[in-house]
C-alpha cells in the first residue's frame, strides 16, 4: 500500500512534469522501490491528475497480478532497479531533448548549470521502443554510468534516491536542451568559458 506521504510526492511531481511540458497528458511513467517491491504509476493514468488508486504495487523480481495494471515500461523499471542503485525512476518525454536526440549521439550541455549537473547525456537507440526486453537491457545498462539518458526519438529515463532527485535531472535536461537549441537557432559562435570543456565528451 502506498502511504499518504509517498502518494503526495508522486502526485506533486507528476503534476509538475505535466504542467512544465515534460510529457503529454498520459505519456511517461514513474516508480519508487520500497523494500523488495516497486510502486509504479498504472498504465494510462494522467500525469497531472494522479489519484491514490493510480498506483500499482508489484514485486521487484518475478511476476504477480500487479503487472496487469502497471505501466507498459515496468520491464524497464525492473531492469534498472536490478542493475543500478536507483531508488526512484522517472520516464518522461521532454520535447526539446527528444528533438536533439534525433540527430545526436550525446547531448553535451553548454550552459554552466547543466555542465555541473549532467556533463553529458548519452543517447541510445532501441528498435522496439516501448516496453521491450531489448529496451530494458539497453536503457538499464546505459544508466549504470549516468543518472539520466535519452532514448532516441522517445524520451528520457532518469534515476535518483528520491523522485525529486530524478525529477531534477529531467528538468535540468530539458533546460540544457532548450539552451542548446536556442543557441543553435541564434547562429552565433560560442565563446568557450569552461576550462577542460573538451573533456565533457569523454565523460
Amino acid at each position: 500500500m502506498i502511504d499518504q506521504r509517498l502518494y503526495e510526492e508522486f502526485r506533486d511531481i507528476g503534476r509538475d512534469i505535466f504542467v512544465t511540458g515534460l510529457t503529454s497528458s498520459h505519456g511517461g511513467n514513474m516508480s519508487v522501490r520500497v523494500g523488495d517491491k516497486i510502486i509504479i504509476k498504472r498504465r494510462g493514468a494522467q500525469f497531472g491528475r494522479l489519484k491514490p488508486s493510480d498506483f500499482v504495487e508489484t514485486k521487484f523480481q518475478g511476476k504477480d497480478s500487479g503487472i496487469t495494471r502497471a505501466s507498459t515500461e515496468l520491464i524497464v523499471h525492473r531492469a534498472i532497479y536490478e542493475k543500478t542503485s536507483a531508488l526512484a525512476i522517472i520516464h518522461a518525454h521532454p520535447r526539446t531533448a527528444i528533438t536533439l536526440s534525433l540527430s545526436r549521439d550525446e547531448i553535451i550541455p553548454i550552459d554552466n548549470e547543466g555542465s555541473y549537473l549532467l556533463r553529458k547525456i548519452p543517447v541510445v537507440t532501441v528498435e522496439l521502443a516501448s516496453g521491450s526486453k531489448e529496451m530494458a537491457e539497453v536503457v538499464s545498462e546505459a544508466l549504470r554510468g549516468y543518472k539520466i539518458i535519452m532514448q532516441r526519438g522517445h524520451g528520457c529515463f532518469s534515476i535518483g534516491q528520491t523522485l525529486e532527485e530524478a525529477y531534477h535531472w529531467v528538468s535540468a535536461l530539458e533546460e540544457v536542451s532548450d539552451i542548446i537549441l536556442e543557441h543553435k537557432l541564434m547562429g552565433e559562435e560560442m565563446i568557450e568559458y569552461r576550462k577542460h570543456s573538451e573533456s565533457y565528451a569523454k565523460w
Partner: protein
Amino acid sequence: MQGWTGKILDINLSNGGIEIVPLDMEMARLFLGGRGLGARLLWDLVGPEVEPLSPENVLIFTTGPITATGSQTSNRFNVSSKSPLTDTILHANSGGWWGMQLKRTGYDALIVRGKAKKPVVIEITPEGVALKDADHLWGKGVFETTEALGQSRNKRNVLCIGPAGENLVRIAAIMNDKERALARGGPGAVMGSKNLKAIVVEGQEKNKPADQDQFKFLLYETGKLLKASPLTSQALPEFGTAVVMNVINEIGALPTRNFQQSQFEDADKISGEAITDNILVKNQACWACPITCTRITKTKSDKEGEGPEFESAWAFGAQCGIDDLDTITEANYLCNDMGLDTISMGNTIGCAMELAEKGLIDDDLSFGQADKLLDLIRDTAYRRGIGGDMAEGSYRMAKKYGAPGLSMSVKKLEMPAYDPRGMQGQGLVFATGNRGACHETGNMLGPEVLALPRLIDRFATQGKAGIVSVHQDSAAVIDSLVYCKFTNLAVAEEFFARTLTAVTGELFTADDLMMVGERVWTLERLYNRREGFTKEDDTLPDRLLNEPVSGGPSEGFTVKLAPMLEEYYAFRGWDKNGVPKPEKLKELSLEFTIEVAYD
C-alpha cells in the same frame, strides 16, 4: 592494474617474522582496499574461536587504490580487527598523513599478528622493516611518543597507542600523526595486547595514475564541485564539523544527558560558532585535502591542540550536560594523549552520571560536573576507581550495576551525536550497524537534515530502508577506496568511479562501486553471524524504542524500528531473519560465506 602495489607486509610479533606476500588481485578488484580489503583478509585470518585480546587476533592496516595519488582527500587508511568492545568485526579509519605514507612504503596493507615479548615499535623505511625496542616509550602519552619517534609531516609519520591501549581499555583508540584517531571499537586495546607501542612509516614510492590526463581533469572537476558546495567550501572550513551542532539541536535530535532529552539548552556554547569565536587558532588540512575542517584550538589556560570535532564536543558537552567549552576541549586533548575514543568516553561518562543520579552506583557524580571530566578520563585510561568500570565501556558498566538499558549503545558500541527518535532513518542505521551504533557507516544526516541529495521526511519510515542501504553501501565503498566522506557532500559516486578508472586503467562505473559497497557490507554481516550475532542484535536501547521524546520538535516520537527493519531485510535480499539469501551471496561473489549463512 595500477593503483595497487600488489604487496602486503605481514609481521608476526611472536617470533619476529617479517614476510612480504602478494596481494590477490582478484580480491583487490572485488574489495578494493581499506575497509573492504580489511574485512576480506580478516575473514580468513580471525575466526570465532579467537579472543579479541589474544595473540591470535590481528591488526590489518589497509590503504586503497587511490591512496597517495593526490586526488582530493586520498590520505586516509583503515584498520580492521575483531573488536574487544563489541566482539563484532572492527573497522576504523583515519586521516592525516600516515595512510599516505604507508602507501609510499610500497605496501597496500600491513598485517600484524602475535604478541611481542616486550614492548616494540615497527619501523618501515626505505632501509627496510625493523622491530625496535620500546621499553622507554611504554607508559608514555601519545604526544610524547609521537615526538620521540620523529614525526615529520610529509616524511616520517608515527602511529601509536597511549596508556589506555597499554592498559587494554576497551574503548582505546590508535592515534596517528599525534591527534588523528582510529577510534571506534577499541583497536588501541588490541594493539596494547600485542605489546606494540607504535608503527613508524617513511616512504618514497609514488602512486601514479594510469591515465594522467583524465586524472587531472577529474582533479579539476572535483575541485570545482568542492568549491561550489557551501558545506565543503564554507561551513566546514569556517566552523569545523561542529557546524552541525546547532542544526541538530534545532530539529530536536541532539541527545542530551544520556539521551534523556533531545535538545540541549546550551548547545550554542559548544557549537562550531562558539569554537570559532572563542578558541580557534587556525584551521588545518589533512594531506591533499582542500576542505581544512581540522580545528587547532587554544584554551584559556594556554593549552593547545586539535579539536574538538562535533562528536567530541557533543560527547563531553550535551551528553554530559556540560556547557564549558574550555573543559570540553581539554577533555578532547586528554583523550588524544591517552589514546581514547572520545565518543565512547563521553557517552560512557554520561551513562555513569545517570547511574549515579539514579543511585545505582555509589558516587556523587551528576550531569553538568565539568570539574570531574578530566579526572574521569585519566582514571579510565589507568583503570583507577570508577574508571575501571568505564574502561569496560558503557554496556558492561551499566550491566554490572543492573541497568544495561542505560547504556546508549548498539552491540555495545556507544552511540554518536544523533537522537534517532528525531531521525528515524538514523535509527535503522544504528540498529543494523555491523560495528555497532555508528554514524560513519551510512549517516542519514544528509537526506534527513541537510537535504543531500534531497530532503526527505525525517519522521517517515516507508521507503527509508532503501535510502539507508544505499548510504551504507556508499559509505562502505568510500571507506574501501579510501576517501574522506566529506568529499561525498559535494561529489557523487560517479566521480569516485571515474577517478578509480583513471588511476587503475580499468573501467569502474558508479554501480560497480555500489556493488563493492554492498559486498563489503554483506561480508561484514556474515562475519558477525559467524561470531553468533543474529537479528536480535539489530536493535536499539529500550529508551529509544519506548520512551517518547518529552519536548521540542521531536516531541512524542520513538523509533518505529520494526517496519523499517522488515523493509530493510527485504530490500537487501535477506530472509526474514536478516540472513542474506544464497542467490544474493552468489550475486555478490561471496560464495565462500554460504556455509556460514546457512550452517
